[in-house]
């Protein structure tokens, strides 16, 4: 088959503080790059259309579905996945709280929930119940009915606000 157009481009992506220089197809999405090239499995495919939140990563500290981002457009962005936040104390608290509340049933949606919850509590430490729900509404969790994750996040919020 004739190849008339250039299909692969060089891309520079900064993920969890590491700079990766890659050659990727122009249409490759960040989710694919993270999973297949960098083996960061906390971003997960759920729908490919940005509705389910399973592939959420932090782009310059904002939670964004990585299935909607082109890898070649990320050179100026700082990308963080759950793997790169192992030392983050707020995230550690959230993870403990999730484990205690049984908020991760199958666990597939959980990294996305954790990143969004961390973002919300960072930007709005005394978030109300309706703000919590609104933040989680960009994620689909089919197992828990959202009760346990909401309890887990509220628990961290209450202890966080006191600190």
């Amino acid at each position, binding site marked *: 088959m004739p190849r008339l157009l250039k299909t692969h481009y060089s891309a520079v992506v900064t993920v969890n503080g590491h700079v990766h220089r890659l050659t990727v197809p122009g249409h490759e999405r960040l989710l694919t790059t993270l999973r297949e090239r960098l083996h960061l499995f906390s971003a997960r495919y759920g729908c490919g259309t940005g509705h389910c939140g399973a592939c959420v990563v932090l782009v310059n500290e904002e939670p964004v579905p990585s299935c909607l981002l082109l890898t070649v457009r990320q050179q100026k962005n700082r990308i963080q996945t759950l793997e790169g936040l192992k030392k983050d104390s707020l995230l550690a608290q959230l993870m403990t709280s999730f484990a205690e509340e049984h908020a991760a*049933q*199958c*666990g597939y949606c959980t990294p996305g929930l*954790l990143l969004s919850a961390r973002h919300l509590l960072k930007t709005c430490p005394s978030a109300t119940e309706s703000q919590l729900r*609104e933040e989680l509404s960009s994620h689909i969790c089919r197992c*828990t009915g959202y009760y346990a994750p*909401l309890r887990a996040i509220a628990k961290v919020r209450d202890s966080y606000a006191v600190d």
Partner: protein
Amino acid sequence: MRMWPLSTYPRYAPDWLDLHPEALIGGILEAPAAPARCAIDNLEELRGLPGVETILTASEVPCYPFTTAGQPEPEPSPYDTLILNPLSRYPGEPVALMAASSLDALYHIRQRAKITYEPWYGPLHDQHPNNVAEAVHYSSGPAAPSEADSERFKTTIHVGRVSHMQLEPHAAMCSFDEENRLVIITTTQVPYHVRRIVARALNCPVSRILVKATDVGGGFGGKQEVIVEPWVAILAVKTGKPVKMMLSRRQEFILTRTRHAATLTVESQWHGRQIREIAMSADVETGPYASHGSTVAHNMGLKSLPLYRAEAYHFNASVRYTPGPVAGAMRGYGGPQGAMAVETHLNQVAARKGLSPWCLRHKVLAQTGDALDIFTAASSFKRIHHTNLRNLLSRTRDAIGEGSPMATGEGIGLAMSMQASGVPGSELAEVSIGVDEDGSLFVKTGAIDIGQGARETLSNIIYDALQLPRGHVPISFSMGQTQDFGFDYGTYASSTTYVSGLAAYKAAGIVRRKMESLARSMMRHSELKDTPLSECWTALAHSSFYGPRRHPVMGHAVARPSDSPAPYAIAAVRLTVHDNGELVIHHIVIGVDAGKPINPRGFRGQIEGAVIQGLGYALWEELELDHSDTHVLNPSLFDYALPAPQDIPPLDIIMAQTEDPTTPLGAKSVGEVALAPIAPAIVGAIFRARGIWMRTLPITREKLWNALMAQRETVTPS
């Protein structure tokens, strides 16, 4: 603590697929229309495209009929499908399977494929000329009850098809091991059924296939179906190379499974406040392949009618082959459809009789000792009700505040449901527990943790049976690895705690007896002081490998219970229906009798999750079909409505504090039971709020508004 699901290490099937870039990528060429005979006109051109390894059509794959329903033998589902069917019976069904070195190559095949089709107007399956896959008739009790001074009531409801919407799509990879066996890595609830069904489809011995089940990112019955595995297996066999395949979200909606759409009619004959006769007839749409159709249809009657005392029961079901997506097992397994019909019927009867739904149920609820298996022959094992639900009914009634003043448009609804704990008379689970040299335990089982907390539940059962404090020694699991043994019919029918848990309990008992015997023998030889087992556990374990009486300790046990006690749920919903059709749910109370909770947080999580799936079933979710009932109109998360966090009402759970007498664990099952009563409870509440019966699910705002408009036009004098 449930920490391990927070791990980001590769543990789901899609993760393992991504770790194998060398594997070919499998894909399917989908039928554009159905039912139709499809052909690919430019097959040779497609095969010559760069990167394309193979394209297989129906004539090039083995033709051994099988069923995709993961059930034990003798399989109740008809063998009505092939790896590739020459007649495409639903849009999206594979016309051809393909394997290529890159996704781009698959994309090019899809773009260039010239698929022509010839519509098919005959029956979907030749052996069923009227498209009826199975007709079921059951009857018990006196043949013709007397008609004198009795009242008759009739209710018809319709429930739509919904999608499982597990977040993790179906994904599988097939490769070869050093002995040329097929190794299938897959996300499944039924690893041993996957092995057997793939072996049947390929006509090879089961020992040639190893199934490695991964952690499952949501099952709900959708992964009780063997869908992708035969496809990757045949592609791997034909190419001789590893092949992986993951479905897209759109494919999840159109070519995996749905909950059965059905129209159900319940008729009953009453003498005062006693049911003389109750009859259900179900028209079940099972899609173009029967899959779980007949067993789901059976359960529509068997999981709803025995809740109530009647002199006679009748159940008829017609399981029809229909175009459109294939229906299969889904959380509730017939229970949600059956409960919607029977509970709505009882609520209607109560309204007609001028009784409250609570009062009527107090009169007609089954008692302890009444038959659960209302239709089985007298000679075979008959299950009975083990508990009386009247106390739980009263507690639920008090918690929802029945009798307190109501605002305009406010109403309270009630409904009940029951499930089973495993398939009655058809369960087998094998568990092996070994003690390692450091005292830690390894457990081999075919049960899977699909999110319900099987690991924590089995761990708690094992600690308790060993009389060790929970968490005293680490437990590691091998779940669903067929090469490790630990046979299990699989994680479905709410069976893990009752069946696999019982096997774990027995195996742990064996381990305890062996460890105690080792301790006694060491004490006799003064190698050990007289201490409780928990304190000398590690020393004993070490000694069992390196001491003078070395003999590693292992326990192996099998559970095949003949009973399957029913867990029950009583749902009470308080809601308001506004004039504009807006429905606001203020409170849901759910009373649950599921025996003794072994893993309380998991128990609660199962109820909460089931309630919200039940809420979605009642109010929003529907896989819509086009005018010809074939194409799915909303195969994306943009179009398919799911419950959102903002929709989640306050929920209170009331536990019945019972212990089941048929198992030493005292526990029944809780995975599915809380889903079914939500929809009929909402229907009942809407009636009490507004006086209208919503008989079709889902009750969307549009439907509710139309019903309110119709009511207003009817009651306004002209």
